[in-house]
């Protein structure tokens, strides 16, 4: 630790029960003046109750409009170590699967060209390399690409697609999340690196409704694995859960959101026509229950955090789509959505806000999506969908 590092307010943050970023940064402050000045400037912010960062909107690497988030200190004379403190986003591998060599390679680059500080991972999924100078951006980019890495997205572009670990380690995966994420990343390189949209567009991919990437809440397009047929039941394994003393009634049956499970002694019965695929029973009894065989994904649109408008959850637009390479049907859908949003969206309007403004009915019509019952918010209440045929018949009747 740097000898003259006096940060009593920040050190308060080390006293709680959880790991502290202050402790982490202090551990490298002795060898990195950038890390030490980062703590000093933050301490001053805490003292003065204001931030001291300036936005650097033009910094980046040649040809790319994303991947670098520019920051300058507003107090460069006082904290020269963070006079420039740009962040570099590195496109993570699908499912965040690394080798130790790969991680060491990244850290060697970052120790040489940046602060050595990282955030693994940012909310979009990228590896986030924190703090470097403008003149180090191109050398960093060159070193990264020579080792096979690329920058991720930032700004008004398609953000780095991310996914759960999927079939690499999870038997619930309803499709190959890793392959799809790789495919989307490669297919849309221009959209990832060259901002061309009204605002950001995030795609997150989860292999099952457990939704380990939180796609339904955090991505403009959530691709979530689902199955069409019945939950697979192994009655022998179910009997073992009962024999083990597990409170099946309390933990599983009574917790089913649609009450579609019944148990008779050591036999379980599921009314799959009423199952909403919440995954609760499968999670609790993974040896007895498993996802079905007709696997694919549901697609929800519109989730976002509260930046311009309030937070939104994703709404199901496609209840089931098969996802097999080369994913032409999905590409076609994504491109139709982008084209309509691009043409009619306002600046800084996310796809969820856009759908609310233009109405879901028009969005579905323009993009070519069929209306589905899940789009009706409440029975007998004004639904999103306008039944033209019904009103045409009513009009004809009144003329008579």
């Amino acid at each position: 630790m740097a000898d003259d590092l006096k940060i009593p307010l920040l050190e308060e943050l080390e006293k709680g029960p959880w790991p502290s970023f202050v402790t982490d940064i202090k551990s490298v402050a002795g060898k990195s003046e950038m890390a030490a000045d980062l703590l000093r400037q933050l301490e001053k912010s805490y003292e003065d109750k204001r931030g001291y960062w300036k936005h650097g909107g033009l910094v980046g690497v040649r040809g790319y409009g994303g991947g670098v988030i520019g920051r300058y200190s507003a107090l460069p004379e006082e904290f020269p170590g963070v006079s420039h403190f740009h962040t570099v986003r590195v496109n993570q591998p699908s499912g965040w699967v690394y080798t130790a060599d790969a991680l060491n390679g990244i850290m060697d680059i970052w120790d040489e060209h940046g602060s050595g500080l990282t955030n693994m991972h940012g909310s979009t999924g990228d590896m986030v390399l924190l703090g470097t100078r403008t003149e180090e951006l191109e050398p960093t980019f060159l070193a990264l690409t020579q080792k096979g890495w690329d920058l991720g997205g930032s700004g008004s572009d398609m953000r780095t697609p991310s996914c759960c670990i999927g079939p690499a380690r999870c038997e619930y995966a309803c499709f190959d999340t890793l392959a799809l994420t790789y495919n989307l990343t490669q297919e849309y390189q221009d959209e990832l690196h060259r901002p061309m949209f009204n605002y950001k567009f995030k795609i997150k991919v989860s292999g099952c409704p457990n939704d380990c990437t939180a796609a339904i809440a955090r991505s403009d397009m959530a691709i979530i694995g689902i199955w069409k047929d019945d939950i697979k039941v192994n009655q022998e394994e179910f009997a073992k859960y009962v024999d083990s003393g597990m409170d099946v009634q309390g933990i599983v049956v009574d917790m089913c959101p649609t009450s579609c499970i019944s148990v008779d002694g050591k036999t379980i019965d599921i009314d799959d026509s009423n199952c909403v695929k919440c995954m609760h029973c499968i999670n609790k009894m993974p040896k007895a229950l498993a996802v079905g065989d007709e696997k694919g994904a549901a697609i929800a649109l519109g989730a976002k955090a509260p930046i311009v408008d309030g937070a939104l959850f994703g709404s199901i637009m496609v209840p089931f789509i098969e996802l097999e390479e080369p994913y032409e049907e999905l590409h076609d859908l994504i491109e139709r959505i982008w084209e309509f949003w691009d043409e009619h969206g306002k600046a800084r309007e996310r796809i969820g806000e856009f759908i609310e403004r233009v109405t879901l009915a028009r969005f579905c019509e323009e993009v070519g999506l069929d209306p589905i019952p899940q789009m009706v918010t409440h029975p007998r209440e004004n639904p999103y969908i306008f039944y033209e045929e019904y009103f045409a018949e009513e009009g004809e009747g009144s003329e008579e």
Partner: protein
Amino acid sequence: MAVSVEQLADEMFAIVEESAGKRKLKAGDLQKAMAAKHGDEVSRKDVKAGIKLLIDSGRCVYGYFGGSSIELPRTEGAANE
């Protein structure tokens, strides 16, 4: 294509130059300007190719302030030495 990508790039560069210091232009603004000027003679892909040419040649750069824009290369006011 009746209008070449190079011509589109030149026309878009002129618009960016004209707007410098007054208005930040997004890719969509340039798209609409070219569509208004050339109609069906140019596609969205042509305009994107023109923007790519501008960026890759270094005549323009991407900027960000709330949203991404296409701008002339310059030293920004926030930059420290």
